[in-house]
């Protein structure tokens, strides 16, 4: 498939994952996890796995983010690490 797009998106995925676990704000972690899932969905679409990309777009970037935000809203946003 498209070699260069794949590599560029993979780099962004790793950056998003690092940011999601290092940010000091749990709401931000949830949002960055949504961005991470969306990048993954893009990656799978590039690799030709359209069904997997479709599922990830609806599940990972959609419902997972909503669940994270609901949980953070019901607990607390603060974190020490």
């Amino acid at each position: 498939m498209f070699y260069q797009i794949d590599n560029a998106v993979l780099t962004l995925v790793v950056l998003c994952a690092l940011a999601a676990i290092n940010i000091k704000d749990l709401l931000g972690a949830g949002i960055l996890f949504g961005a991470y899932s969306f990048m993954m969905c893009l990656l799978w679409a590039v690799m030709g796995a359209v069904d997997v990309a479709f599922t990830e777009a609806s599940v990972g970037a959609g419902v997972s983010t909503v669940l994270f935000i609901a949980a953070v809203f019901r607990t607390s946003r603060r974190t020490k690490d």
Partner: protein
Amino acid sequence: MEEFFSQTIASKYNYWCYIVLMMIGLYAMVGKRNMIKKIVGMNIFQTAIILFYVSLGVKRDATLPILEHHGHEGGDAGGHAAAQGAHDTLHAVPGATPDAVPDAVSGAAHATGPEALDHAAGAADAAHHVAINAADYINPLPHVLMLTAIVVSVATLGVALALALRVHRRYGTLDETEILESLRQ
């Protein structure tokens, strides 16, 4: 040097990133103290494994695993079976040309019975695209396995968040060290 770069880095870049993502996920699950962070790490770990599987299934110069198809013909059973029988005959005889189709139709009209019906629809579809070459389509097996894994991962995410909420309801915090301190008292 150039050869080393193309063989070790470029052609295996997906696997390097999968290893890095797996390490990030494991570090977040073990090293982070906040429960939401641990759950984010768990999901990153799951996605890394899915990335590995999907990367295994990629084929160069291949297309999506959805076959070319034409509409399914309906109609009454007799005509249906006859048309399919015609395709069956066409399929069975390698040298058959489209000119031979009328003969085949008249021949197949007599050949009724369960056996003709059994192979009928499949042969009709196969006749439209007899030349399915496995090298032209991306490997669908990893996609199938990973599709259900993603939906199961959101189910585990829901259960994990429910457990975190229970912990928060009981101890008033999501931080591991604070929970351990209040347990010791």
